[in-house]
């Protein structure tokens, strides 16, 4: 591996470890809330319908798949295909955000407000924090669009880094989907 690739991979690893620690802390807090609550969701609160979270999961999973395709395209130096797949990734990422917004409106319409207690705090707070990271991810995808328009030698490494971050966001969401909504 070339030295600058090693640098880039190491730096991205440190970034992902840091971001992972942030979400691990949230999950740790969630474990405490869940295990100390007599019932979950707390009495008087209904379980959130799985439909929108499931849609979000599908959207982000498919977007991750297209993001993976972008890297394969860049490896083949097929940059026009890469740009196409990147556009699909981005559109699906935006769709994920729309689905999340739908989820927040749905929660509100069922009487679960931000101030409704710990269940609502977790539902809104955790999905917000994840959504902020997705917005950062969308900016990264936008940056990659610019990179792939006039690709240099560094394009591959940049694609790999953005891809890693995007997959990371997907993995965190899947954990949230199962942890917060399914079980």
């Amino acid at each position, binding site marked *: 591996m070339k030295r*600058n690739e090693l640098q880039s991979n190491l730096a991205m690893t440190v970034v992902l470890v840091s971001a992972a620690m942030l979400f691990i802390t949230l999950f740790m807090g969630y474990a405490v809330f869940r295990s100390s609550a007599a019932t979950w969701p707390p009495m008087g609160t209904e379980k959130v319908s799985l439909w929108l979270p499931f849609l979000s999961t599908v959207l982000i999973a498919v977007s991750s798949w297209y993001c993976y395709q972008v890297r394969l395209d860049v490896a083949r130096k097929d940059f026009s295909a890469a740009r196409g797949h990147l556009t699909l990734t981005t559109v699906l990422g935006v769709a994920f955000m729309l689905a999340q917004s739908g989820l927040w409106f749905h929660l509100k319409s069922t009487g679960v407000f931000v101030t409704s207690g710990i269940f609502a705090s977790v539902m809104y707070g955790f999905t917000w924090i994840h959504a902020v990271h997705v917005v950062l991810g969308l900016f990264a995808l936008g940056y990659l669009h610019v990179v792939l328009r006039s690709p240099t030698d560094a394009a591959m490494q940049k694609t790999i880094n953005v891809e890693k971050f995007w997959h990371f966001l997907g993995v965190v969401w899947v954990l949230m989907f199962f942890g917060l909504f399914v079980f």
Partner: protein
Amino acid sequence: MSGGYNEIHPEPTTFWSKYIISFDHKVIAKQFLWYGIIFLGIGGLMALLIRWTLAYPGEAFPVLGHLLFPNSAGIVPPDSYAMLFTMHGTIMIFYAITPILIGAFGNYCIPLMIGARDMAFPMLNMLSFWFAFLSGLVLLASLVLPLGAAAGGWTSYPTLSTMIGSPGAGQTLWCVAIFLFGVSSTMGAVNYVTTVITLRAPGMGYFDMPLTVWGLWLTAILNAIFVPVLGAGVILLTLDRVMGTTFFLAGASATSGSGDPVLFQHVFWIFGHPEVYILILPAWGIVSDLLSFFSRKPAFGAKATALSMTAVSVLSTIVYGHHMFTTQMSPLLTQSFMTLTMTISIPSAIFFANWLGTLWKGSIRFDSPMLFSLGVVFVFGLGGLTGLHLGTVTTDLYLHDTYFVVGHFHYTMAASVLLGGYAGIYFWFPKMFGRMMNETMAKIHFWGTMIPLNGIFFGMLMVGYGGMHRRIYNPFVYDSLKRLIPINQMITISAILMGAFQIIFVINFLWSLYKGKKAPNNPWNVGTLEWTIPSPPVHHNYDVIPVVKCGPHEFGNPNLKTGRDFQYQTEELVEGPA
């Protein structure tokens, strides 16, 4: 090597690119140094206000009192007192120690000591400083809010830090400032970790790195892992304050579930205990090197010192519970945390013994960096020993939340790190600015710091042992504590004295910047890489990347024929006749 590795960046030409948004690690280091020193002054003034209140309750603070507190006739009011100790702790830890030890020395020393031309990611480095700058502005802005700054202690425990305990935007801005600072620290950590792994000069193995670099590297690793934990905590706290969530609010009706204030304490200390080591590791590294440099002897057991520091870093991640023995933790947990805490003594004792081994039979030169390093050995020894009482459940239950704790953590985190920082400044000043600092003033500064410092912090241990609680505006409303007023006055007079002697440092620093004697390339006769190049170094540090052939502590080799008592790291190790 190919690509962007260690290339020579073009030298900046404009004032803006040279001094403000500089990508040069040396300039960024100096930015962090100034930033840290300014905040050290602000935090120090706050300390004096706190101390005055504890020694002379109800009396106006001299000179500045009427200016700062016109509505209370110059007396520090109770609510301001809470803000003062909160902001003093926050500023000293995040805005003084961190920028000086990690920001300034990390940036200055890592590339120079490993033979690199800059950090791996110069732009990220620049951003790291400006995020820290922004964070500092946000924190300072909170001081002038109508309801004042954060007042829940530097630990910001809920419910003190929720809207119930701290109405107003001060605590919210505190959270925002800490989060921004966390982003800055993480950016720094990305750079430090990557730079050390990938940009070491050819021939430099990990154990050929100076121990300063070891300390800074381990700090960066801990930073990358644990600062985001606090990040998560302050985000949730901010959501509680701004959006009305209840993560850390208890007492909501059982049907809607309840948040957990103690959870914040867990989150805080999962970060907070490694943070203690984040702060002290660079100082340990610097002292480990300087003791060898000024004893003119190889660092005793340098490899063991590096490995012990690594072991402490690992252990620091699993001992945090000792901060929470009084939170009704299960005895099984308290005993586990106590045992784990005690195990830290083993690696700590190893490198401490190595420090003494380095000094043993050395040709000690009592230059100012050495004096401050010896100061660290003394105060860290005291700080470490008093930690045993707090790590042990049975004694901690009595000492918890007393001034004994304040004395202990000031010895470890404040005194050790402050003296270590001064050692570093006196040592690298000639390399940084190309001029020598005045040695006589430095020695006066040392004794003027060291003696009162022990008056302050040993005094704190005593009043704490005598039962005085921390964070109380006027403890002497309790009759039982009235007898402690004279010791408190001794502490305060020591603090004023220590503060006054810092003026000598400031004068020396500023005077030497412009009028100091020109520094030679290697004023201390040390063999690490930064002393092989001019003082101050050129923009790209090394015209030719050096090749490392021996360790950083090669002193007093009897086979040396060069007339020097040390070897540069670029020289082949001189072996004796077989």
